[in-house]
């Protein structure tokens, strides 16, 4: 690589002139401004999608452990459909194909669309883990809950899920980190997040290495932060007297 040119981030996105303080003012924005806002978009997409994925994934995961065969089938079908088609293809279908079938969907902002697409995709994987977590508990636990007169719902709520979620925190951490990285598909539906910034800024400035390095670092920081947060959560939820770590 030739020489570094970190000044590229201080350039005005309109005329390419370097702005002294690196932050634009009065409607002018620099690449740095742009990148920070892109980071914000990445985080918003990822975190909201994570929320969707956790809710839907837990629900589907629970469905797959219930006694009712039809609900299990429903849960299995959901999981298989959403995990066996590449994310990018799913996003395309949500954005271009489904709205032409259901025209009412056309007015849904693409941000919402990608949050759900990414959320549903990840929910399939989370469902898999939640199911495994519930099934890894001894059968006696649900017997014990039921034997005390708790209903099936109460048994899940007070007995099975609290432990199952503790067990699946490590794989959930991976999924949460993945969702940050997978949020890059949002560029396909016109969300100005980090990947789009990277593609566009390197095209405009021809400083690919600097741009990609900065963007990689931001992804890394985000994923790492999630990892740390989840470790804290894991630590907080650790049950005294239970084996640590796993």
């Amino acid at each position: 690589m030739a020489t570094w040119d970190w000044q590229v981030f201080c350039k005005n996105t309109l005329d390419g002139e370097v702005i002294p303080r690196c932050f634009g003012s009065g409607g002018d924005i620099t690449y740095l401004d742009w990148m920070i806002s892109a980071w914000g978009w990445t985080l918003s997409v990822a975190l909201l999608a994570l929320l969707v994925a956790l809710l839907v994934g837990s629900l589907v995961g629970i469905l797959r452990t219930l006694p009712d065969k039809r609900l299990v089938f429903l849960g299995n079908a959901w999981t298989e459909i959403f995990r066996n088609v590449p994310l990018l293809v799913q996003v395309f279908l949500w954005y271009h194909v489904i709205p032409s079938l259901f025209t009412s969907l056309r007015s849904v902002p693409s941000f919402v669309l990608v949050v759900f697409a990414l959320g549903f995709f990840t929910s399939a994987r989370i469902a898999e883990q939640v199911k495994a977590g519930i099934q890894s508990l001894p059968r006696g636990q649900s017997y014990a809950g039921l034997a005390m007169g708790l209903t099936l719902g109460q048994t899940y709520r007070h007995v099975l899920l609290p432990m199952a979620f503790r067990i699946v925190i490590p794989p959930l951490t991976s999924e949460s980190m993945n969702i940050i990285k997978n949020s890059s598909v949002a560029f396909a539906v016109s969300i100005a997040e980090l990947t789009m910034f990277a593609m566009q800024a390197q095209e405009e400035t021809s400083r690919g290495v600097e741009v990609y390095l900065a963007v990689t670092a931001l992804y890394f920081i985000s994923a790492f932060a999630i990892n740390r947060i989840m470790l804290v959560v894991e630590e907080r939820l650790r049950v005294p007297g239970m084996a640590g770590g796993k």
Partner: protein
Amino acid sequence: EDTLKKVKDSGAITLGVRESSGVLSYTLGGAKYVGYHVAICEKAVEDIEKAVGRKLKVNYQPVTSQNRIPLVQNGTVDLECGSTTNNATRQKDVAFANTTFVEEVRMAVKTSSGIKSIADLQGKTVATTTGTTSVQTLRKNKRAENMEFKEVFGKDHSDSFLLVDSGRADVFVMDGSLLAGLIARSKNPADFKIVGEVLSVEPIAIMMRKDDEALLKLVNATIAGMVKSGEINALYDKWFMQPTPPTGAKVGLPMSDTLKDTLKHPNNKPMEDYAKK
């Protein structure tokens, strides 16, 4: 960097091509790459063979907008025959042969929309493709004309076109040749048309490594020869006016005055110089 020597020693030359850059450079499937720019490069390769005195094996390396410059720099690609805009920033990293095509950035709209020029864009939705210079062009025009319109970005050109087709966007701002190609291959070409003023003019040229005078000279000589013999006009006609594979669609984009002028006065001036005119 002596590409001619490298090519002579290895007996092979690598052309950078695009999977899908309108009729400038695209694939027919398999390892077949064709297009106006590819044809010019192949002609240049013939001259290189003469210069090094041996037959060369021609490898086609598909490139993308993200990797084409690094690939040329690191020696993977010897001649890039895609659709790369020659601009000042890039000239710091790579060299360009004399301009062989001039893109005029314009708008594609649905015939029924009634949009005729930039002035009609107030309150509309404008599509363009991520990772292209058109995004910047659009940003500048928006500022200059002091207008309010919404921008959406397609992942690639066919996505952006689909945005217009499906009604999510009103216009698609992009290189004229690409727009013409997309319209020609669409299900109902009559539904779309290219309108409006030229938003920016971009010289497109063959790209190669910097500081390789011998190769640059040779390629420029090839181009000059083709202009002189009229071969370049025939090529242009073949790709832009006649039916093209695989669909047999006709792009139907006559040679612009700027291109005619540029071919008459060969140069490799960057895009910035065109804007000043």
